[in-house]
């Protein structure tokens, strides 16, 4: 059975795996799944963490094994790589729109903020009402990849996906 399954099909299958903490986007859209290789019956799946300590990585690895097992691939190696380092630039525009619709302000285009150390405010929009009149509550939010903001117009608090 394995021989007739190619890597494109595996990519397609794995694209059904949602990020455990942000279930509206999948691990390909998020840029976590880097590569899939089939060699001598061994399926190698290469993933990279968003943040060093991202607790979702273990769950994602388990999900990958479960999905592959369902189609009869049991000889699986999940490889964790750190280079090139994950960046928010890898999140596609489609995925960013999904984040916004889900209530998370997506990261801006530029990767690491040059002004980040100077405490410079970013220009971002409230995902609920679109207002730019927002303020940061905390640099660190509900998960390692997010900061906590509030909208000064509609008064809703919201998560912002930090640029790295």
């Amino acid at each position, binding site marked *: 059975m394995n021989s007739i399954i190619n890597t494109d099909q595996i990519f397609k299958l794995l694209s059904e795996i949602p990020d455990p903490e942000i279930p509206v986007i999948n691990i390909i859209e998020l840029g976590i799944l880097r590569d899939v290789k089939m060699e001598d019956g061994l399926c190698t799946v290469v993933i990279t963490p968003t*943040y*060093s300590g991202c607790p979702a990585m273990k769950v994602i690895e388990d999900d990958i094994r479960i999905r592959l097992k369902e189609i009869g691939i049991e000889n699986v190696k999940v490889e964790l790589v750190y280079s090139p380092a994950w960046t928010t630039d890898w999140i596609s525009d489609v995925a960013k729109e999904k984040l916004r619709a889900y209530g998370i302000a997506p990261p801006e285009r530029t990767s690491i903020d040059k002004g980040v150390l100077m405490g410079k405010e970013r220009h971002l929009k409230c995902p609920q009402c679109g207002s730019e009149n927002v303020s940061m509550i905390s640099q*660190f939010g509900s998960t390692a990849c997010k900061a906590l903001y509030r909208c000064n117009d509609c008064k809703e608090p919201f998560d912002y996906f930090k640029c790295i």
Partner: protein
Amino acid sequence: MNLQEAKFQYLLRLGDSNLIIGHRLSEWCGAGPILEEDIALINIALDFVGNATALLTYAAEVEGKGRTEDDLAFLRGEREFRNLLMTEQPNGDYAATIARQFLYDVYTFYLYEALKSSKDETIAALAVKSHKEITYHLRHTTEWMYRLGNGTEESHERMQTALNDLWMFTNEFFDMDEVDALLIKEGVAADLEKIRTQWETRVKEVIAEATLQIPTTNFKQKGSREGKHSEHLGFLLAEMQSVHRSFPGAQW
């Protein structure tokens, strides 16, 4: 000492320091002064523990004796740990935690910046990754240095006391021995004398901006390179390792 032994020692120094300070920060879980700070410190702790996991995984691989990152974290005794003395100091009040973190964040900010160009590919890759995270850590602690230093009389006083108490552990950041000498020659490690200059400049700027004083103590504490720690590490390990020692190899 050969290159492999030196690299193993170097990775333990980096990995252990991040593991221990990460564990210390995790002790604030559920006990932070405000909810946002509770969340911030735990996020930062997670970054450190995650980075330590990667560094210790690589250390075990370099050592080549079949140990894993868990063996290194949970089955070594106090004298085998190579973390900087600063990282094991107790949390104290919030000023003590922030001061410890700020002094260490400035250090790791420049250290990992330098390690991005290490000739060891794994160390360089991990440094690139970590440096992005450290940039956020340093911004957070710098803001709190200003807030506490320029806050009330009491917050100012407490922050100055914290700096005075911790200052004797800062010199050890820049201690170099044969491990560093060999690895600097091979282009693997960072020259800590250069980091010292950058560290001093940044720390002085922030301390001045926060209307605090650079401590005048000349007393310098060291020992972690040889596994000689303060009395606090043993208690920390007893807690951190208790589950693994009670239920060896337990998984969930």
